[in-house]
């Protein structure tokens, strides 16, 4: 498989989740392990351009596919515009949900560069944040949208 543009290999056991392989075998702990059943979105990544919860994908299923994690969202070491917008809007508290959220917002803006508030609610309702109250994350999405 390719992860963040780099070909990677890992030995996995049959029941292992992609999230586990990323975190424990491939040295990519940016995707967060919070619920292990696709309820919180903290491990959101892109698989062949589709937003998925890495905890719901078997590691073996990722064989031959192209993955982008939070670590590979920005290019050449610089921040992705969505990451910049999160920092600028102050949309981060503990930061545990942030890796999944920035990947999900990047995916949303790629599909819908000028999302309405309803579209933002719909697209991000699978990414839980317990700290912020979401208001500044809305702000971050709007900031990122103006720059896309």
């Amino acid at each position, binding site marked *: 498989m390719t992860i963040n543009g780099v070909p990677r290999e890992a030995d996995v*056991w049959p*029941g*292992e989740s992609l999230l*586990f392989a990323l975190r*424990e075998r491939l040295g*990519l*702990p*940016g*995707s*967060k*392990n*919070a*619920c*292990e*059943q696709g*309820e*919180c979105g*903290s491990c959101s990544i892109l698989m062949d351009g589709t937003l998925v919860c890495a905890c719901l994908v078997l590691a073996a299923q990722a064989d031959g596919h192209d993955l982008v*994690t*939070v*670590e590979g*969202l*920005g290019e050449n070491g610089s*921040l992705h515009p969505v*990451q*910049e917008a*999160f*920092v*600028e809007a*102050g949309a*981060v*508290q*503990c*930061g*545990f*949900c*942030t*890796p999944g959220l*920035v990947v999900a917002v990047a995916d949303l803006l790629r599909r819908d560069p000028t999302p309405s508030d309803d579209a*933002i*609610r*719909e697209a*991000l*309702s*699978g*990414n*839980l*944040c*317990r*700290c*912020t*109250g*979401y*208001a*500044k*994350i*809305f702000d971050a999405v709007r900031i990122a949208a103006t720059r896309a």
Partner: protein
Amino acid sequence: MSDPRATGSARYAEDFELPGMLHARIVRSLFPHARVVRVDASAVPESCIVLTPDDVRDLSPYGCQIEDQNVLAERARHVGDPVAAVAAPTPEQAEEAVPLVEIDYEQLPAVFDAVEAAQPGAPLLHETAAAGGAAAYFAMRPQPGTNICHRFRIRHGDVDAGFAEADAIVERMYRIAGAQHAHMEPHACVAHWDGNRLELWTGTQTPFSMRDDLATIFGIPPEAIRIVSLPMGGSFGAKTFVRTEAIAAALARKAQRPVKLVLPRSEEWQTLNRHPATVTVKLGARADGTLVASQTTCYADTGAYADCGPGVAQKMGFAAPGPYRIPNVRVDAYCVYTNLAPNGAFRGYGQMQSTWARERALDTLAEQLGLDPVELRLRNIVRDGDVYCTGETLHDVRFAECLEAAAAAVRWSEGRRGKGIALVMKGMQTPSRAAIAIERDGDDYVLRCATTEMGQGAKRALSLEAARLLGVDVARIRFPDPDTSLVPYDTRTTSSRSTYMMSRALAEAVRDPRGYGEIRNEGGLDPDTGQGIASTHWHQGAAAADVEVDEETGKVTVTHLHTTTYAGRVVNRLGAELQTEGSMIMGLGTALFEEVAFEDGQVINANLSDYATPSFADVPTRFTYELIEEDGADVHGLGETALPPVPPAVGNAVASLGIEVDELPLKPETVLAAMKVRV
């Protein structure tokens, strides 16, 4: 502008690793109350280490306020009580080993409701009262022969005489469901023994309480323990005191290797929740609305172990009368054991529960008197220099301003149908201590400080304050993760106290030639009379809500949620805003749908789908707030203030439509039932 939290490079307790470490899982009781008669680990592969009650018999019982809990239970007192634990080279091997540990139980009678459990004849969870723990900052009043582990009272004036002169009396019972913190990062720690020295890396709000409790458990001096508090992916009170750390440390002791323990999400509901409560409020007033008497009885369900429940019950009790002038006050608050998972600190710390009850009762009283609820409150509201029912004088009082601003935000004067309002008066940990040391390192300043970071922004707030006091750029302030072997003692990062207490200690340290500053706030209450100093500093706020109720389904939609809080001098503006927004949305979850649901003592919604926390979809269309600021005033903690008034503001808004609900959450079926008996 970069931030490690936005790039995935931030590291949390969950990400911490040591070479050669094993991975642990806990083997938990399947029954709410049962004697463990046999633990057989013979089927577990030899590559795993198994910890059984035999391995921990030399360890002392623990508990931050009452030492009533053992590292492993020989008598399980709740579903999920740790009975054994395993450590294996990989997490999956540990998971596979759990069902291989065979346990035989002898079931015992169980009780799941605090009011029932407090009655004589209820099955007892702890036959004898245990010793007070290190974090007991007030005298415990266990009631022998019952499940009541602490009783707190306020006696002020003569309530019977007060009610005798009342023209209107309201008496109602309110029930508040338990809630789960649902911090996004589960509990995670790594324990390692270096000879007789224990090192522990964990996400904890209470590094020194953790150190002292582990010293008690393992019978070693506190100085032989080093706690490093790593950044937490949220906590909200959950990562306080000993949770999983004693098990990890006992496994590491047996394995002679480092052990990492990360809780699977479902086990969070078996580890710590918020106290379910039953609160009965009786209020008496004259025809003009003047309050003459207030009587409150609180039952706080602390679950199988006291944890900090006595403190929660006490705060539930002393916050119950609220920011009103009432000549006659009586409060009885009980902290009660039941066979549910332990309940402990949760944002709002007991005060949400009694605030819900009192503020709902006030609206019912206003209705009975034919008064506007805002008018009723203003007629009785405490002002600067008033004496609270505990005997302490209140200073820098801004309740009227908070209330009036919140009412204006929802255009109260233009009609109050569908609108509700509520006030909160919240105490801060008293007594407590804070200390900090400032070290020079080249051009930089290093803060040696036990204040922990869980997303609340304490590091940013204190770094900004240090930069301001030292007159340097904030980039020159460094704030390493708290390490008990390097930082001076601090009570805890709880109770919205850190910015207030630690910034004062910081100011002392800047003045001190050695760079050391220490602050104490003295006080405390007599548990039998409630007299003394409950809080050296009160958090003040109001909430207002505008709601719609679906007549077909009973679903409540909050179209506008507003809070006004007294902020004093704001240290970290972004942090103040985020903490307020986060408190409001958490209050909304409590108001509308959050509930830990049980069946025969078993949590039946222990996942983030069935236990719903607010998502983007739940944010009210109008979501506004105001911080009342004043230069030169005290710093006021804002970590929790906006939470407790939100549920009663929503409940009062629903009641303004003739739908009287006394239970939280205001879930559709509850609201529908109340609509059938609409007033």
